[in-house]
């Protein structure tokens, strides 16, 4: 049964499987409702999918495994940033990945965007390719979310010097050397901005790539509250002050 679903997913996609040297890392926490479909969709384009189960209470780890993903299971809930770091380390150390793609578990990303971003990284020899929901033509970002994200992007441009239009997009591609160097110290939800500030500090070559985000009721419910942006700003400021000393 699982086999046939896999073949269906493979047949339904237009493009070919992206290079075998690419790993997709999906941090997940209680995602049993959607994870099977997400993993199958990603497996249609990528050979290696790593799901990091961040101490979920449901059976999403087993489901992801059945759907063909490598599963790394945190013994307790450590935070999304920590899960991402675990997955990246597994991809780089255990699977010797050349490119690591980070992908959200709630199904809001398009796997074709991910494949296109890997191609961009490969063709242009970039160390990082960042997804931006504001570069594409289709744009159905909810109004409050848009306001917060635009402010966050402005904040990121001002503090890191990076020319980015989206500060909190879960879809990104990191080349092996960048992924190895990446050190996430903020284990919670501030890692997206932390990654951007590391790109700025380390001077990695990067580009943004337009991506579409599907805002489903599920992803909306799983998403962060807008006021968490202030927590993130606080985390970043504090982290920077401590790092500077």
């Amino acid at each position: 049964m699982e086999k046939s679903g896999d073949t269906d997913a493979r047949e339904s996609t237009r493009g070919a499987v992206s290079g075998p040297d690419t790993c997709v890392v999906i941090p997940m926490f209680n995602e049993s409702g959607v994870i099977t479909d997400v993993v199958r969709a990603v497996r249609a384009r990528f050979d290696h999918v790593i799901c990091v189960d961040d101490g979920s209470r449901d059976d999403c780890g087993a489901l992801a495994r059945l759907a063909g993903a490598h599963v790394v299971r945190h013994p307790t809930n450590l935070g999304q940033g920590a899960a991402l770091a675990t997955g990246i380390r597994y991809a780089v150390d255990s699977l010797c990945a050349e490119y690591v793609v980070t992908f959200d578990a709630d199904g809001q990303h398009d796997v074709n965007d991910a494949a296109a971003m890997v191609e961009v990284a490969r063709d242009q020899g970039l160390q990082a390719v960042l997804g931006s929901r504001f570069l594409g033509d289709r744009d159905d970002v909810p109004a409050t979310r848009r306001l917060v994200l635009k402010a966050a992007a402005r904040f990121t441009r001002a503090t890191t010097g990076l020319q980015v239009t989206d500060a909190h997009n879960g879809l990104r591609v990191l080349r092996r050397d960048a992924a190895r160097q990446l050190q996430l110290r903020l284990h919670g939800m501030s890692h997206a901005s932390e990654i951007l500030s590391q790109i700025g500090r380390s001077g990695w070559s990067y580009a943004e790539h337009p991506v579409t985000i599907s805002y489903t009721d599920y992803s909306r419910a799983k998403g962060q509250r807008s006021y968490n942006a202030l927590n993130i700003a606080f985390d970043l400021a504090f982290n920077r002050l401590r790092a500077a000393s």
Partner: protein
Amino acid sequence: MIIKLLLISSLAVAALVLIRGKRSALSLLMRRSLTLGAIGCGVFAVLFPSTVTQVARAVGVGRGADLLLYALCVTFLFVSIALYLRLSEMHDRYVELARRQALLEAEILAERDRSRIVGA
């Protein structure tokens, strides 16, 4: 007033510790000697309560009890900051430990899967 100077400078040091605090042999020595000092001052204040009021007057505070309250506030702040720093450091270690465990488990499972396929 001397007390204003003392309080402002302690608050400034607290902010500095929050930003730059690192666990070092010097900070350990500071913590230990401050604790010993606090115990010593406490015993002295219990034995000679009037000296607290005298000290308070000398630094520009009306009553000894007020001086005690100020000292308590500053101490509480320092203790909170020290605990916060210690906890976040321990959290970092705990995350790394849990991560190593998770990765090891994943490697073992992957190995087991491989050997099963070979065995079949």
